[in-house]
């Protein structure tokens, strides 16, 4: 955890430095609050950094991912892809596509092909239902890309 603390503290201090420098350009009353907060955050981060230099006996280990890393990485990657592709392919199409992929990836080992397909169909139906509810009833008009 101490290394993670150190990294985080340095990152935060960097953000504070950036904040301080940019706030110079604001008008006086617009700069007041940012500068106060940046000082406070910078001070706290410095404190965190200093404390992280001292070893502590009962320090919890920093574990980014409990268990197998691959499913998590794949899921996060698909989440990012999902959001990124919405503008390109349209909301509904992207959602259905990525979701099907996600299910296959996550369930590959445990379920048979039929079961996977059934799951995909069922949840796709739910997704379409939600989509229609929001799009038609609540008039939220989702982004449309090449498809829907």
């Amino acid at each position, binding site marked *: *955890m101490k290394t993670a603390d150190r990294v985080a503290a340095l990152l935060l201090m960097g953000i504070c430095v950036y904040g301080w420098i940019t706030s110079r*350009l604001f008008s006086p*009353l617009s700069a007041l609050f940012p500068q106060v907060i940046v000082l406070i955050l910078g001070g706290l981060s410095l404190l965190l950094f200093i404390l992280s230099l001292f070893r502590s006996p009962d320090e919890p280990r920093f574990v980014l991912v409990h*268990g197998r890393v691959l499913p998590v990485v794949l899921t996060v990657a698909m989440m990012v892809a999902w*959001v990124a592709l919405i503008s390109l392919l349209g909301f509904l199409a992207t959602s259905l596509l990525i979701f099907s992929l996600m299910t296959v990836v996550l369930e590959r080992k445990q379920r048979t092909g039929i079961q996977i397909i059934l799951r995909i169909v069922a949840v796709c139906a739910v997704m379409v239902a939600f989509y229609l509810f929001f799009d038609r009833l609540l008039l939220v008009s989702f982004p449309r890309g090449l498809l829907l």
Partner: protein
Amino acid sequence: MNELFLTSIGSLFTATNLLLVLLGVVAGIVVGALPGLTATMAIALLVPFTFTMQPVHGLILMGAIYVASIYGGSFSAILLNTPGTPSAIATTFDGYPMAKRGQSYQAIVTATVASVFGGLIGVFFLLFLSPPLSRLSLRFGPPEFFWLTTFGLTIIATLSTKSILKGLIGGAFGLLLSMIGIAPIEGSVRFTFGSISLQNGIALIPALIGFFCIPEVIGMIERKAEHYTAIPYRRQRRVLWGVLIHIVRKPLLMIRSAVIGTIVGIIPGAGGNIAAMVSYNEAVRASRNPEQFGKGSMDGVVAAEASNNAEVSGSLIPLLTLGIPGAPPAAVLLGALLLHGLRPGRELFTYHGAVTYTFMLSLVLANILILPVGIFSGRWISRLVTRLPVTLLAPMVFFLSVIGSYAINRNMFDVFVMLGFGLIGYVGRRMKIHPGPIVLGLILGSICEQGLVQSILMGRASGSVLAMFFTRPLSILLISLTLLSAAWPFIAGAIRRRQAGRKA
């Protein structure tokens, strides 16, 4: 007043009105439970439809939706650690741990009963104490808002489970995030990296969904190998009875939470999210076993849900008496009132008194109806969510998160914000930085800054900035509360040590 009161009770019990309350409650719970749909949105969408209705019908429907959606937010807060509305943020603190222990149904029932009682107490204040309370709401000027937010920030100490330092860092980070956008005074464009969308600042709902929900979704995938379902479910008997007894045994908790909710509601600009968190904080401080909070304590859920429903009525007090909305949904209601030619003020209670009193009484009914509707749907929903395998639930929740983040401002940018904060929140969670303080800073930041800068301007005009901050009676009260709240962890620790010493 009495005559009007009695006739209004009579006019409430017509078939149309009763149906409208029921419809509003059901719709409100649905809206509240879906993350990303808020009470404000729901009422705003409804306003054009009420155009053709009689004013009283429209108001009754919107009032019921308002009440029920604030309650409905607890569903996703408990089951998915995602506040369905910002008012349910505090409900996640103990509601979700309860669900993780298999007590999701019990948590929902607790939230339901607490909301009903809290809401009824709030409506009581609305019906009988509106005039003095609305005068109190006007006493809050810029200095008071500043001190109120500093008091709010001391809640961070309660929310940081292990390290107060990390909690403070989270809070300061949240405050920094709140400054992105156009400065409220003097309008400098701050920290926007050239993006127009950022000029509007970080939208609260996408940030909420990101910080609270996404880490849980990723967590679900992580735990997939160990648990089939995301949330265990243990059958429980006679839950409702148990909850009722628990609440009746601690009347002070309920009353205090409702009072806090009402008072925060009357403060213009402070909404259910702040009400619930302050109430939660006070419950922790007043409790004999504060360490149970955050791990699945019913008291935590009671404190949060009682106050956020009371806040609904609180926000209506300055709205109806002065035309000043106490919270964003009330602002939309103001528009609806004006649309129907109902001008807030004395006129509303005399000339239009019949409509107003019927409306207020309908809130009583709405709060009561939450009990059966909430328990029935709660049982069904908690069974559904807990039976779903992780691999289906996680993507579905993410899907809803995307919809929710988009639906607020119809802006894809918010979805990116949600995802970004989700990943940051995930890493933060692993580093023991709780999202609570960050979100608190984000919510309180703009109110705090405005209070600070406006007070400085006022102080300069009146000759002394220091006097402006420190000599006003209400400010002094708030400063004392702030100091007490900040020092509390140390005081409580000392008291406990002395008690332990005495026992030994």
